[in-house]
Protein backbone atom coordinates (compact mmCIF):
# COMPACT_ATOMS: atom_id res chain seq x y z
CA UNK A 1 0.00 0.00 0.00
CA UNK A 2 1.30 3.43 -0.89
CA UNK A 3 2.13 5.46 2.20
CA UNK A 4 0.41 8.79 2.31
CA UNK A 5 2.63 11.82 2.58
CA UNK A 6 -0.07 14.12 3.85
CA UNK A 7 0.87 16.24 6.82
CA UNK A 8 -0.20 14.84 10.19
CA UNK A 9 -2.31 17.32 12.16
CA UNK A 10 -2.94 15.22 15.25
CA UNK A 11 -1.28 12.32 17.07
CA UNK A 12 -3.64 10.16 19.15
CA UNK A 13 -1.94 8.34 22.01
CA UNK A 14 -2.83 5.23 23.94
CA UNK A 15 -1.87 5.52 27.65
CA UNK A 16 -0.84 2.19 29.22
CA UNK A 17 2.53 1.00 27.88
CA UNK A 18 2.52 3.91 25.41
CA UNK A 19 2.49 7.26 27.20
CA UNK A 20 3.63 5.66 30.42
CA UNK A 21 5.30 2.39 31.39
CA UNK A 22 2.94 -0.01 33.10
CA UNK A 23 -0.83 -0.24 33.52
CA UNK A 24 -2.52 2.44 35.58
CA UNK A 25 -5.27 0.23 37.01
CA UNK A 26 -2.67 -2.27 38.21
CA UNK A 27 -0.23 0.21 39.66
CA UNK A 28 -0.67 3.83 40.63
CA UNK A 29 3.08 4.31 40.27
CA UNK A 30 3.26 4.53 36.49
CA UNK A 31 6.03 6.72 35.01
CA UNK A 32 6.10 8.60 31.73
CA UNK A 33 8.25 6.96 29.10
CA UNK A 34 11.74 8.42 28.90
CA UNK A 35 11.87 11.38 26.54
CA UNK A 36 8.12 11.43 25.98
CA UNK A 37 7.58 14.94 27.30
CA UNK A 38 10.15 16.27 24.84
CA UNK A 39 8.39 14.52 21.97
CA UNK A 40 5.03 16.00 23.03
CA UNK A 41 6.50 19.48 23.36
CA UNK A 42 8.42 19.42 20.10
CA UNK A 43 5.39 18.35 18.09
CA UNK A 44 3.17 20.80 19.97
CA UNK A 45 5.49 23.68 19.09
CA UNK A 46 5.11 22.74 15.44
CA UNK A 47 1.34 23.06 15.68
CA UNK A 48 0.68 19.34 15.75
CA UNK A 49 -2.11 18.45 18.18
CA UNK A 50 -2.20 15.57 20.62
CA UNK A 51 -5.13 13.54 21.87
CA UNK A 52 -5.76 10.30 23.73
CA UNK A 53 -7.67 7.10 23.01
CA UNK A 54 -7.33 4.88 26.05
CA UNK A 55 -9.36 2.27 27.87
CA UNK A 56 -9.17 3.50 31.43
CA UNK A 57 -11.15 5.20 34.17
CA UNK A 58 -11.55 8.81 32.98
CA UNK A 59 -11.10 10.68 36.27
CA UNK A 60 -8.30 8.49 37.48
CA UNK A 61 -6.30 8.68 34.26
CA UNK A 62 -6.80 12.42 33.89
CA UNK A 63 -5.62 12.99 37.48
CA UNK A 64 -2.52 10.99 36.69
CA UNK A 65 -1.83 13.00 33.53
CA UNK A 66 -2.13 16.21 35.54
CA UNK A 67 0.18 14.86 38.22
CA UNK A 68 2.69 13.98 35.51
CA UNK A 69 2.37 17.53 34.13
CA UNK A 70 1.24 16.66 30.60
CA UNK A 71 -2.58 16.86 30.73
CA UNK A 72 -2.66 20.28 29.03
CA UNK A 73 -1.15 18.89 25.83
CA UNK A 74 -4.09 16.62 25.04
CA UNK A 75 -7.24 17.92 23.36
CA UNK A 76 -10.55 16.04 23.49
CA UNK A 77 -9.09 13.02 25.36
CA UNK A 78 -11.21 9.89 24.94
CA UNK A 79 -10.68 7.84 28.07
CA UNK A 80 -13.45 5.29 28.39
CA UNK A 81 -14.27 1.65 27.67
CA UNK A 82 -15.36 2.05 24.06
CA UNK A 83 -13.65 0.45 21.09
CA UNK A 84 -10.72 2.68 20.16
CA UNK A 85 -12.09 3.13 16.66
CA UNK A 86 -15.07 4.89 18.26
CA UNK A 87 -12.81 7.10 20.37
CA UNK A 88 -10.70 7.98 17.33
CA UNK A 89 -13.87 8.81 15.38
CA UNK A 90 -15.02 11.15 18.17
CA UNK A 91 -11.69 12.96 18.24
CA UNK A 92 -11.72 13.37 14.48
CA UNK A 93 -15.22 14.88 14.56
CA UNK A 94 -14.34 17.20 17.42
CA UNK A 95 -11.21 18.48 15.68
CA UNK A 96 -12.97 18.52 12.30
CA UNK A 97 -9.92 17.24 10.40
CA UNK A 98 -9.45 14.42 7.91
CA UNK A 99 -8.68 10.88 9.05
CA UNK A 100 -5.69 10.90 6.70
CA UNK A 101 -4.17 13.67 8.84
CA UNK A 102 -4.26 11.58 12.03
CA UNK A 103 -1.65 9.24 13.50
CA UNK A 104 -2.60 6.67 16.13
CA UNK A 105 0.08 5.24 18.40
CA UNK A 106 -0.54 2.17 20.55
CA UNK A 107 1.55 -0.73 21.86
CA UNK A 108 -1.05 -3.38 21.06
CA UNK A 109 -1.30 -4.73 17.50
CA UNK A 110 -4.94 -5.65 18.13
CA UNK A 111 -5.91 -2.04 18.87
CA UNK A 112 -4.04 -0.73 15.85
CA UNK A 113 -5.77 -3.31 13.66
CA UNK A 114 -9.18 -2.46 15.03
CA UNK A 115 -8.66 1.27 14.43
CA UNK A 116 -7.17 0.79 10.97
CA UNK A 117 -10.05 -1.48 9.97
CA UNK A 118 -12.65 1.10 10.89
CA UNK A 119 -10.63 4.03 9.52
CA UNK A 120 -8.51 2.88 6.56
CA UNK A 121 -7.05 6.37 5.99
CA UNK A 122 -5.47 6.68 9.42
CA UNK A 123 -1.77 6.00 10.04
CA UNK A 124 -1.04 3.59 12.91
CA UNK A 125 2.33 3.09 14.52
CA UNK A 126 3.77 0.96 17.29
CA UNK A 127 4.42 2.61 20.67
CA UNK A 128 8.08 1.53 20.56
CA UNK A 129 8.66 4.12 17.84
CA UNK A 130 7.63 7.18 19.85
CA UNK A 131 11.11 8.71 20.03
CA UNK A 132 11.34 8.80 16.25
CA UNK A 133 8.17 10.83 15.75
CA UNK A 134 9.87 14.26 15.62
CA UNK A 135 12.05 13.03 12.75
CA UNK A 136 9.20 11.79 10.57
CA UNK A 137 8.64 13.83 7.45
CA UNK A 138 4.87 13.94 7.90
CA UNK A 139 5.35 15.50 11.31
CA UNK A 140 7.64 18.21 9.95
CA UNK A 141 5.60 20.99 8.38
CA UNK A 142 7.55 23.15 5.96
CA UNK A 143 6.96 26.32 7.96
CA UNK A 144 6.14 26.93 11.59
CA UNK A 145 3.94 30.01 11.58
CA UNK A 146 2.47 32.07 14.43
CA UNK A 147 -0.75 30.24 13.73
CA UNK A 148 0.88 26.84 14.09
CA UNK A 149 2.66 27.79 17.30
CA UNK A 150 -0.62 28.95 18.81
CA UNK A 151 -2.73 26.16 17.36
CA UNK A 152 -3.36 24.19 20.55
CA UNK A 153 -4.31 27.35 22.44
CA UNK A 154 -6.69 28.35 19.65
CA UNK A 155 -8.36 24.93 19.86
CA UNK A 156 -8.66 25.35 23.62
CA UNK A 157 -10.42 28.67 23.02
CA UNK A 158 -12.73 26.83 20.63
CA UNK A 159 -13.62 24.37 23.38
CA UNK A 160 -14.55 27.27 25.70
CA UNK A 161 -16.67 28.84 22.95
CA UNK A 162 -18.38 25.51 22.34
CA UNK A 163 -19.26 25.09 26.01
CA UNK A 164 -20.75 28.56 26.11
CA UNK A 165 -22.62 27.98 22.87
CA UNK A 166 -24.10 24.70 24.10
CA UNK A 167 -25.30 26.36 27.28
CA UNK A 168 -26.71 29.35 25.43
CA UNK A 169 -30.49 29.62 25.36
CA UNK A 170 -31.97 31.59 22.50
CA UNK A 171 -31.56 32.05 18.77
CA UNK A 172 -28.12 31.46 17.21
CA UNK A 173 -28.04 35.12 16.17
CA UNK A 174 -27.98 36.32 19.74
CA UNK A 175 -25.12 34.02 20.57
CA UNK A 176 -23.13 35.11 17.51
CA UNK A 177 -23.72 38.75 18.45
CA UNK A 178 -22.44 38.12 21.94
CA UNK A 179 -19.06 36.99 20.56
CA UNK A 180 -18.14 40.49 19.26
CA UNK A 181 -16.56 39.08 16.13
CA UNK A 182 -14.19 41.19 14.05
CA UNK A 183 -13.27 40.12 10.56
CA UNK A 184 -10.28 41.86 8.99
CA UNK A 185 -9.49 41.55 5.29
CA UNK A 186 -6.24 42.88 3.83
CA UNK A 187 -3.78 42.39 1.00
CA UNK A 188 -1.33 39.64 1.96
CA UNK A 189 2.04 40.98 3.04
CA UNK A 190 5.28 39.10 2.78
CA UNK A 191 5.07 37.96 6.40
CA UNK A 192 1.67 36.38 5.67
CA UNK A 193 2.96 34.09 2.96
CA UNK A 194 4.11 31.20 5.11
CA UNK A 195 0.68 31.08 6.70
CA UNK A 196 -0.90 31.45 3.28
CA UNK A 197 0.98 28.41 2.01
CA UNK A 198 0.07 26.53 5.17
CA UNK A 199 -3.60 27.36 4.60
CA UNK A 200 -3.59 26.04 1.05
CA UNK A 201 -1.94 22.82 2.23
CA UNK A 202 -4.10 22.26 5.31
CA UNK A 203 -7.53 23.26 4.04
CA UNK A 204 -9.65 20.56 2.44
CA UNK A 205 -13.31 21.06 3.21
CA UNK A 206 -13.60 24.73 2.41
CA UNK A 207 -11.24 24.86 -0.54
CA UNK A 208 -12.78 25.78 -3.88
CA UNK A 209 -10.13 24.32 -6.14
CA UNK A 210 -8.07 21.89 -4.08
CA UNK A 211 -5.01 23.69 -5.43
CA UNK A 212 -1.98 24.28 -3.28
CA UNK A 213 0.57 27.01 -3.91
CA UNK A 214 3.99 27.33 -2.38
CA UNK A 215 5.65 30.39 -0.92
CA UNK A 216 7.38 31.54 -4.11
CA UNK A 217 4.28 31.19 -6.26
CA UNK A 218 2.22 33.10 -3.72
CA UNK A 219 4.85 35.81 -3.50
CA UNK A 220 4.83 36.22 -7.27
CA UNK A 221 1.05 36.73 -7.16
CA UNK A 222 1.39 39.13 -4.26
CA UNK A 223 3.72 41.51 -6.07
CA UNK A 224 2.06 41.20 -9.47
CA UNK A 225 -0.29 43.99 -10.62
CA UNK A 226 -2.47 41.44 -12.30
CA UNK A 227 -3.34 39.62 -9.10
CA UNK A 228 -4.84 40.39 -5.75
CA UNK A 229 -3.97 38.10 -2.85
CA UNK A 230 -6.26 38.65 0.14
CA UNK A 231 -5.93 37.16 3.58
CA UNK A 232 -8.31 37.48 6.53
CA UNK A 233 -8.28 37.15 10.26
CA UNK A 234 -11.15 36.56 12.64
CA UNK A 235 -11.10 37.56 16.31
CA UNK A 236 -13.75 37.51 19.00
CA UNK A 237 -13.97 38.14 22.72
CA UNK A 238 -11.96 35.00 23.41
CA UNK A 239 -9.07 35.94 21.15
CA UNK A 240 -7.91 35.38 17.60
CA UNK A 241 -8.88 32.44 15.42
CA UNK A 242 -5.74 33.31 13.45
CA UNK A 243 -5.43 33.97 9.74
CA UNK A 244 -8.28 31.84 8.51
CA UNK A 245 -9.12 32.77 4.93
CA UNK A 246 -7.34 33.32 1.66
CA UNK A 247 -8.39 34.41 -1.83
CA UNK A 248 -6.45 34.85 -5.05
CA UNK A 249 -8.00 36.97 -7.77
CA UNK A 250 -6.69 37.57 -11.27
CA UNK A 251 -7.57 41.06 -12.49
CA UNK A 252 -8.32 40.82 -16.18
CA UNK A 253 -9.34 43.35 -18.80
CA UNK A 254 -13.06 42.65 -18.63
CA UNK A 255 -13.50 40.61 -15.48
CA UNK A 256 -12.09 39.52 -12.16
CA UNK A 257 -11.25 35.84 -11.99
CA UNK A 258 -11.29 34.16 -8.60
CA UNK A 259 -8.57 31.50 -8.80
CA UNK A 260 -8.50 30.32 -5.24
CA UNK A 261 -10.74 30.73 -2.24
CA UNK A 262 -10.44 28.94 1.03
CA UNK A 263 -11.51 29.25 4.62
CA UNK A 264 -10.31 27.31 7.66
CA UNK A 265 -12.82 24.70 8.87
CA UNK A 266 -12.39 26.05 12.39
CA UNK A 267 -14.64 29.00 11.57
CA UNK A 268 -17.28 27.00 9.71
CA UNK A 269 -19.83 27.43 12.48
CA UNK A 270 -19.44 31.17 12.67
CA UNK A 271 -21.38 32.14 9.58
CA UNK A 272 -18.40 34.14 8.29
CA UNK A 273 -17.96 32.14 5.11
CA UNK A 274 -19.83 34.62 2.98
CA UNK A 275 -18.00 37.71 4.23
CA UNK A 276 -14.85 37.36 2.14
CA UNK A 277 -16.93 36.41 -0.89
CA UNK A 278 -19.26 39.38 -0.46
CA UNK A 279 -16.28 41.71 -0.15
CA UNK A 280 -14.76 40.44 -3.40
CA UNK A 281 -18.11 40.73 -5.16
CA UNK A 282 -18.61 44.30 -3.96
CA UNK A 283 -15.12 45.38 -5.05
CA UNK A 284 -15.50 43.71 -8.41
CA UNK A 285 -18.82 45.42 -8.98
CA UNK A 286 -17.30 48.80 -8.05
CA UNK A 287 -14.64 48.13 -10.67
CA UNK A 288 -17.42 47.60 -13.20
CA UNK A 289 -16.45 44.00 -13.99
CA UNK A 290 -18.11 40.63 -13.75
CA UNK A 291 -16.73 37.88 -11.59
CA UNK A 292 -15.52 34.49 -12.80
CA UNK A 293 -14.43 31.73 -10.44
CA UNK A 294 -12.64 28.41 -10.75
CA UNK A 295 -14.01 25.44 -8.94
CA UNK A 296 -13.07 21.79 -8.74
CA UNK A 297 -14.99 19.13 -6.89
CA UNK A 298 -12.92 17.14 -4.43
CA UNK A 299 -14.10 14.43 -2.09
CA UNK A 300 -14.59 16.93 0.69
CA UNK A 301 -15.50 20.36 -0.60
CA UNK A 302 -19.21 20.07 -1.31
CA UNK A 303 -19.92 22.76 1.26
CA UNK A 304 -17.89 25.19 -0.81
CA UNK A 305 -19.90 24.27 -3.90
CA UNK A 306 -23.13 24.99 -2.05
CA UNK A 307 -21.71 28.35 -0.91
CA UNK A 308 -20.92 29.36 -4.48
CA UNK A 309 -24.30 28.30 -5.77
CA UNK A 310 -26.14 30.15 -3.03
CA UNK A 311 -23.97 33.20 -3.71
CA UNK A 312 -25.61 33.16 -7.15
CA UNK A 313 -22.72 31.79 -9.19
CA UNK A 314 -23.79 30.00 -12.38
CA UNK A 315 -21.82 27.25 -14.05
CA UNK A 316 -20.72 28.37 -17.51
CA UNK A 317 -18.52 25.43 -18.41
CA UNK A 318 -17.22 22.17 -17.08
CA UNK A 319 -14.37 20.12 -18.53
CA UNK A 320 -13.73 16.40 -18.32
CA UNK A 321 -11.34 16.80 -15.42
CA UNK A 322 -14.20 18.20 -13.34
CA UNK A 323 -13.01 21.82 -13.49
CA UNK A 324 -15.95 24.17 -13.34
CA UNK A 325 -15.97 27.78 -14.45
CA UNK A 326 -18.49 29.88 -12.57
CA UNK A 327 -19.79 33.28 -13.51
CA UNK A 328 -21.53 35.82 -11.34
CA UNK A 329 -23.32 38.86 -12.73
CA UNK A 330 -23.21 40.48 -9.27
CA UNK A 331 -26.91 41.27 -9.36
CA UNK A 332 -27.33 39.85 -5.88
CA UNK A 333 -24.70 40.42 -3.21
CA UNK A 334 -25.33 39.29 0.33
CA UNK A 335 -24.69 42.07 2.86
CA UNK A 336 -22.24 41.39 5.70
CA UNK A 337 -24.00 39.77 8.67
CA UNK A 338 -24.57 42.52 11.20
CA UNK A 339 -23.15 40.46 14.06
CA UNK A 340 -19.69 40.74 12.48
CA UNK A 341 -17.65 43.92 12.45
CA UNK A 342 -15.89 43.82 9.07
CA UNK A 343 -12.75 45.89 8.52
CA UNK A 344 -11.08 46.26 5.15
CA UNK A 345 -7.47 47.41 5.45
Amino acid at each position, binding site marked *: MAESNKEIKCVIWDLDHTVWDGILLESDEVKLKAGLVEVLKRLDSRGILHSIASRNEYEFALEKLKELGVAEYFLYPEINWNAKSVSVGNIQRNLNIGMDAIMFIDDQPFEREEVKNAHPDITCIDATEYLELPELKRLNPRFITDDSRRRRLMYMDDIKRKVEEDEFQGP*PETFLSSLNMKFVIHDAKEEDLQRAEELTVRTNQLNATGLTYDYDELNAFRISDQYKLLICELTDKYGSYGKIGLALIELKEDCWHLRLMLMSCRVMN*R*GVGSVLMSHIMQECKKDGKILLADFKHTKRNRMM*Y*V*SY*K*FANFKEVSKDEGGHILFENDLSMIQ*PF*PHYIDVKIL
Partner: protein
Amino acid sequence: MEIKEKIRQFIRANLVVFEDEADFTDSDNIFEMGFVNSLFAMKLVSYIEQEFGITVDNEDLEISNFSSVDRIVGYIENKKAG
Protein backbone atom coordinates in the same frame (compact mmCIF):
# COMPACT_ATOMS: atom_id res chain seq x y z
CA MET B 1 -45.68 15.68 10.78
CA GLU B 2 -46.18 16.91 7.27
CA ILE B 3 -43.27 18.12 5.20
CA LYS B 4 -44.27 21.77 5.39
CA GLU B 5 -44.40 21.74 9.17
CA LYS B 6 -40.97 20.10 9.40
CA ILE B 7 -39.42 22.65 7.07
CA ARG B 8 -40.95 25.59 8.92
CA GLN B 9 -39.65 24.18 12.17
CA PHE B 10 -36.16 23.69 10.76
CA ILE B 11 -36.01 27.24 9.42
CA ARG B 12 -37.29 28.66 12.68
CA ALA B 13 -34.62 26.79 14.65
CA ASN B 14 -31.87 28.06 12.38
CA LEU B 15 -32.83 31.67 11.90
CA VAL B 16 -30.20 34.34 12.32
CA VAL B 17 -32.62 36.92 13.67
CA PHE B 18 -34.62 37.08 16.84
CA GLU B 19 -37.60 34.82 16.63
CA ASP B 20 -40.20 37.49 17.28
CA GLU B 21 -38.83 39.59 14.40
CA ALA B 22 -38.94 36.73 12.00
CA ASP B 23 -42.39 36.50 10.59
CA PHE B 24 -42.43 34.77 7.27
CA THR B 25 -45.14 33.22 5.15
CA ASP B 26 -44.78 30.04 3.14
CA SER B 27 -44.12 32.02 0.00
CA ASP B 28 -41.67 34.63 1.39
CA ASN B 29 -38.13 34.54 0.04
CA ILE B 30 -36.20 33.78 3.21
CA PHE B 31 -32.83 34.55 1.64
CA GLU B 32 -33.83 38.01 0.48
CA MET B 33 -35.33 38.78 3.85
CA GLY B 34 -31.90 38.29 5.43
CA PHE B 35 -33.11 35.62 7.81
CA VAL B 36 -30.44 33.10 6.90
CA ASN B 37 -26.72 32.99 6.09
CA SER B 38 -24.33 30.87 4.02
CA LEU B 39 -23.98 28.29 6.73
CA PHE B 40 -27.74 27.89 6.78
CA ALA B 41 -27.72 26.84 3.13
CA MET B 42 -25.45 23.89 3.82
CA LYS B 43 -27.37 22.92 6.95
CA LEU B 44 -30.63 23.03 5.04
CA VAL B 45 -29.29 20.83 2.25
CA SER B 46 -27.96 18.27 4.73
CA TYR B 47 -31.21 18.35 6.67
CA ILE B 48 -33.35 17.75 3.59
CA GLU B 49 -31.14 14.88 2.49
CA GLN B 50 -31.17 13.16 5.85
CA GLU B 51 -34.74 13.83 6.90
CA PHE B 52 -36.37 12.91 3.59
CA GLY B 53 -33.87 10.38 2.29
CA ILE B 54 -33.16 12.16 -0.96
CA THR B 55 -29.96 13.33 -2.64
CA VAL B 56 -29.79 16.92 -3.74
CA ASP B 57 -27.93 16.81 -7.06
CA ASN B 58 -25.53 19.59 -7.98
CA GLU B 59 -27.84 20.71 -10.78
CA ASP B 60 -30.59 21.24 -8.22
CA LEU B 61 -28.47 23.45 -6.00
CA GLU B 62 -30.10 26.69 -7.08
CA ILE B 63 -31.45 29.24 -4.67
CA SER B 64 -34.72 29.13 -6.57
CA ASN B 65 -35.33 25.60 -5.27
CA PHE B 66 -34.82 26.65 -1.66
CA SER B 67 -35.89 30.27 -1.41
CA SER B 68 -39.22 29.77 0.37
CA VAL B 69 -41.06 27.15 2.38
CA ASP B 70 -43.35 26.46 -0.57
CA ARG B 71 -40.47 25.99 -2.97
CA ILE B 72 -38.57 23.70 -0.64
CA VAL B 73 -41.65 21.55 -0.09
CA GLY B 74 -42.32 21.49 -3.84
CA TYR B 75 -38.76 20.41 -4.49
CA ILE B 76 -38.90 17.61 -1.92
CA GLU B 77 -42.23 16.32 -3.20
CA ASN B 78 -40.92 16.33 -6.73
CA LYS B 79 -37.82 14.39 -5.74
CA LYS B 80 -39.78 11.84 -3.75
CA ALA B 81 -42.22 11.33 -6.59
CA GLY B 82 -39.40 10.99 -9.12
